[in-house]
């Protein structure tokens, strides 16, 4: 927006907490497992299958129940599906990159594929949290040990003690061949996960 547009802009509706009772009814299996299209259809996204799991913890180290988590990532070739990339040759017709789940008792499991590295970036997944007591907060997680982490501009902009807090760590391989990574989020207090300001940035 330029200055004139800014002056004429409508005032936004305030974000508010989603409260403790975000309906489990609104859950959608196909958003909790991006590798699953439909059990009756032979199709699926390209790429290494990934199981991302972990805990969401509060200031006292207790599991934060009922957190709505949203995930956003590039496909295996590092391309995001946005209006700007429509028709791009590297778009995966079976992958849109948006996931959503509500954590059960503070644990979460999200099935997807390993994101590829976008231009100039290390592979990453954007994670948005909605929860009782807070409005939306956002962060980005990375994969520990990936060589591109050392030159990622977001990681480089962080203090050195913050970087490991955004690293998912390898935790074996599932029977079906999916790589398992763990990523815990600490919403507040000691060892707090760094969150980013997507309104003022």
């Amino acid at each position, binding site marked *: 927006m330029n200055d004139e547009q800014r002056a004429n802009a409508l005032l936004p509706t305030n974000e508010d907490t989603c409260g403790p009772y975000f309906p489990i009814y609104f859950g959608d299996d196909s958003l909790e497992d991006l590798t699953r299209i439909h059990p009756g259809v032979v199709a699926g996204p390209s790429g290494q299958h990934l199981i991302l799991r972990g805990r969401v913890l509060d200031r006292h180290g207790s599991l934060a129940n009922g957190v709505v988590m949203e995930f956003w990532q590039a496909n295996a070739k590092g391309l995001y599906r946005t209006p700007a990339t429509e028709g791009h040759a590297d778009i995966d017709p079976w992958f849109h990159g948006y996931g959503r789940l509500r954590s059960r008792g503070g644990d979460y499991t999200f099935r997807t594929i390993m994101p590829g590295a976008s231009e100039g970036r290390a592979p990453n997944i954007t994670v948005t949290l909605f929860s009782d007591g807070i409005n939306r907060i956002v962060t980005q997680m990375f994969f520990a040990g990936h060589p591109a982490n050392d030159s990622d501009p977001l990681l480089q902009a962080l203090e050195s003690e913050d970087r490991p807090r955004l690293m998912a760590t390898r935790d074996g391989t599932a029977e079906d061949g999916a790589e398992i990574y763990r990523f815990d989020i600490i919403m507040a207090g000691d060892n707090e996960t760094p969150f980013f*300001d997507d309104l003022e940035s």
Partner: protein
Amino acid sequence: MTKLGRQIGIGPTDNTSDQRTPRQRLRLIPERVRDSFVPVVPARAVTRQHEWDMTRIAPDMPRADGEAIEVTGTLRTESGRPLRGALLEIWNANHYGRYRHIEDHSGLKLDDNFFGMGRVLTDDEGRYRFWTISPGAYLARPDIGRWRPKHIHLSISGGSSRLITQMYFPDEPNNATDPMAVLMGDGFERNIGKSYTTPETDVAQGFQFDIVVGGRNATYFE
């Protein structure tokens, strides 16, 4: 040095807010990676035909207890562009202040005829409409006597627009002490539905709640 942005406020008298609000300032996102933070939610037509009328569990079922109301409005970006085909997920407590949610242990009365969850899509002009039962206020902090004012939860997603908010009701006694309303300050006015007389004989009154999705995310791909 990391460039820092907002410090998130903690909702006064809200224990969960104290437990879950990040204590450190948010970090600013470097310009060159800013676009990677903008999810694009795929269009999802998950609504069912009768979900816009939350005053009944199904069209052939009885009306739920309490006052039936209509909520209408437009959904727009800050620049005024209507958001078409956006999904509104709506949930609110019943007339007695109880949610039909497995984790609502308040013990308040469940109404057999109220489900309390519905989904609608915005039309080509960004307009939406639904009916529901005017929700009961509920006691959020019995120890200090703080109530949650009447409110309807709304989750809005479509394209790069994403917002979770609540519509409050005019002139409610508990509005002023609500922790999140306190954090909104004068801007709280924008989250109050405006009462109107509806010609509909099936609902007692209407509330107009025009929603503006703010921030850069809302307009990122305009």
